């Protein structure tokens, strides 16, 4: 046990005071790297994995809804404006409000479920719009040629239209994914887990390191998803690469 006059202890106290004063003065606080290395396995990593899980499930469900709906409204144009209007309104609802509304529905309660529902709702607008825009971007001559070759409607859809629409659809998935990774952080407020847990704990415990780790990882995850999906987008459109070189 160090005595009260222990110089090493005084140093710690002074350091702590300086950090507190720094906070009060609004100076940039130092990141506690020691905390990060001590808690990487049991706090940071689970939050990161939870975040990836929430985002991935939501985009996958949203895609499963948006693809058939998008194909349908690209055929029945009358349905397109109301669909974009409704999904546009859903998209405009602030996430915290959306979560708060969903939680009040009897039998829902807090947890990942209402967050996934909201994240799916947010993705629909972008995904449906891009499915329709992708199918629209297929030149009429190409479809004519396919019909001339004797392809059925179904064959044209799956063999010609969807493959050619893929880059635009992937562009939509990219925007939706980046948006969802961002919004998923707020899900931690209603106990859905993810990187938001670190941010909210950092705020309530007045511990900047947690805030910075949570916020930085969420940002990096979003940028990583953006870059990866951009690669896919280019992979699915080899013709633009060739055109670019010519």
């Amino acid at each position, binding site marked *: 046990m160090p005595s009260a006059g222990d110089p090493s202890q005084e140093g710690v106290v002074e350091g702590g005071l300086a950090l507190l004063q720094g*906070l009060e003065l609004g100076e940039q606080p130092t990141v506690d790297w020691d905390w990060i290395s001590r808690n990487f396995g049991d706090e940071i990593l689970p939050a990161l994995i939870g975040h990836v899980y929430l985002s991935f499930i939501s985009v996958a469900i949203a895609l499963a809804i948006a693809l058939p709906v998008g194909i349908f409204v690209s055929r029945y144009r009358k349905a397109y404006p109301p669909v974009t209007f409704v999904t546009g*309104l859903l998209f405009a609802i602030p996430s915290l*409000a959306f979560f708060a509304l969903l939680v009040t529905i009897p039998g829902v309660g807090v947890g990942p479920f209402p967050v996934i529902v909201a994240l799916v709702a947010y993705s629909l607008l972008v995904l449906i719009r891009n499915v329709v825009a992708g199918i629209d971007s297929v030149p009429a001559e190409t479809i004519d040629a396919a019909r001339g070759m004797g392809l059925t409607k179904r064959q044209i859809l799956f063999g010609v239209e969807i493959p050619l629409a893929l880059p635009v659809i992937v562009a939509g998935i990219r925007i939706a994914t980046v948006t969802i990774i961002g919004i998923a952080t707020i899900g931690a*407020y209603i106990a859905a887990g993810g990187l938001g847990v670190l941010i909210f704990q950092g*705020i309530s415990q007045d511990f900047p390191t947690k805030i910075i780790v949570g916020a930085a990882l969420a940002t990096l995850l979003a940028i990583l998803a953006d870059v990866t999906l951009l690669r896919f987008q280019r992979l699915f459109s080899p013709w633009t690469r060739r055109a670019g070189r010519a």
Partner: protein
Amino acid sequence: MNGILEVLRRGGFGQLLLTHIELSVLALLIGIAIAIPVALAVNRSPFWSAVAINIGNIGRSVPSLAILAFALPIFGLGFVPSLVALAALAIPPILINASTGLRQVDPKIVDAARGMGLSGRQILTGVQIPIAAPIIFAGIRTAAVQVVASATLATFIGGGGLGDLIVEGFQRNDIYIQLAGALSVAVLAIITELGFGFLERAFTPKGLKVARKRRGK
């Protein structure tokens, strides 16, 4: 329903709504005041335009809660830190749309204007900006909706606004306060979305509308 109305009639509600609107409007104005001049400044150079667009893209990937949370250790709690964070949030969509919008103006049109003897400034204000106006305005609309939504999160760093009601509802486990907060925020956001959609159409120059009709769009 009555329970919700009761919360809305409380004395504090007007103040929260006002703070929410103040935060949003000021943040949007600051965002415009920074993003538009930068977009105009980089307009002439393809390199700096690409830099601006890429910075905008990265900025847009930063989660809004992360921007607000970052502001806390740097600027502390309260209205001003929230305003700074929300303004930072408003910049990327405006910057991206203004830069791409100005760059997408058909070079033939700019050539024609130059051939007519217009100066660089005249081309910018009389040709490029009007043609890019709808795209620039779409960026402002995106930013506005995002700022109104994210202002809800200002409550977590003591910035006030309607998010206070939602948090109060959760903390007291009072469904009416929670619903009152959530519904009023949702309505405010939807009004912003629809209102800016209307303004966007109003900001489209007549000439562009005619051209669009002719192309059968």
